């Protein structure tokens, strides 16, 4: 097939598919053109959409950041940082400017003994960090767990700073005049925690924190207080940690 015959053949095939346009096409087009010319608003429309999207993103960022601020404000500044660390620190976080508050970040303080159980606790809650801190209105102890809350936490106040070390049964006296004993059952304080077991803090009320038992699934931390003080406590998550606030 020559070039010319190919052109002729393909044109015949196209002709068969097309044929001439209807005589009405030209008047149809003229009629369509006589309508008011639509304004070409494409770029304006796109600019409006883009501006709307940008505004939406800005509002979203503001809302999210505000939400995050509210979330973190539930945890006092300088408290137990959520970053999991196995190194305990005795360095206080100073924020002495605010006035003492009668209510802790965990709610009202109590001076009586309290007990909290957790039926869905793991076999053993492994302690992996212990921290202390001081803030306007309260000092703070944070005990962090790697695998969930322990089965029971008991907190008891006492009018001396003398405790019994277990299992040796020896009396140990901490700095301060009064004390609080935190007993954690269903816990392990030595497998994942290798930090200090005695913190001499000398805060306004918490002057010493010392581990007095880590035996048979029970861990006890004793607090030496400069004076008789009430407390509040709560569990926070991510990571799981027991936070005890001691009222100044």
């Amino acid at each position, binding site marked *: *097939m020559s*070039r010319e015959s*190919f*052109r002729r*053949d*393909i*044109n*015949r*095939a*196209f*002709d*068969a*598919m*097309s*044929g*001439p*346009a*209807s005589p009405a*096409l*030209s008047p*149809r*087009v*003229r009629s*369509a*053109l*006589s*309508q008011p*010319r*639509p*304004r*070409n608003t494409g770029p304006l429309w796109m600019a409006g959409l883009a501006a709307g999207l940008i505004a939406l993103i800005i509002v979203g960022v503001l809302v999210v950041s505000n939400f995050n601020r509210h979330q973190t404000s539930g945890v006092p500044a300088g408290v137990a940082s959520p970053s999991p660390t196995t190194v305990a620190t005795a360095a206080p976080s100073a924020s002495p400017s605010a006035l003492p508050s009668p209510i802790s970040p965990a709610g009202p303080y109590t001076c009586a003994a309290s007990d909290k159980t957790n039926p869905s606790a793991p076999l053993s809650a492994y302690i992996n960090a212990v921290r202390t801190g001081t803030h306007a209105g309260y000092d703070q102890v944070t005990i962090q767990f790697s695998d969930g809350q322990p089965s029971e936490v008991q907190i008891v106040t006492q009018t001396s700073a003398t405790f019994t070390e277990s299992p040796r049964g020896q009396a140990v006296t901490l700095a301060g005049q009064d004390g609080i004993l935190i007993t954690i059952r269903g816990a392990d304080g030595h497998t994942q925690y290798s930090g200090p077991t005695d913190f001499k803090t000398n805060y306004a009320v918490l002057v010493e924190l010392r581990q007095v038992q880590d035996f048979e699934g029970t861990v006890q931390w004793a607090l030496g207080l400069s004076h008789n003080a009430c407390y509040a406590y709560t569990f926070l998550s991510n990571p799981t940690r027991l936070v005890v606030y001691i009222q100044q």
Partner: protein
Amino acid sequence: MEQRPTAMERATHGDADSFAMLIDPLLQPAFRLAAVMLSDRTAAEDAVQEAAAKAWSKVSQLRGDESSLRPWFLSIVANECRMTRRRRWWSVVKMADVEAQRRTDDLSPEATSDLRRAVGRLSLDERLPLVLYFYLDLPLDEVARTLRVSPAAAKSRIYRAAKRLRADLTLEEVS
């Protein structure tokens, strides 16, 4: 002596009559292009009408002299055909709805039908350069402007598409 504005200038300044007068001779080739692209004469007329309206709304963007008008308008028609095909992607692609009425002198109906079927198997982007070059008989540089590619690329597209219809075609035959 003040020079009268050309029809092109009047059209680009919003004179609908001038624009209608300019595109009137282009309606037939536009229809033939759309009819082959869509394999549907009714849809082809609709596409041409829609393309004319779009061209009118964008006429202020048209640059150059009257020689720019044909490739510019045909490229709008081709785009409209693509959009029409997308809109009815779910439908069965029809072959030409009107059987060829004219008989060919030196080609049997079977041969014509075979070539039509082969054309029908080409994609829209393959049909377009063939229609522009062979059927509408546009020069290569105008085919290139309609396709918005370089003349070399246009030639290559024509050759590739034609080769699907005639296996022994050589590039030299597309010139």
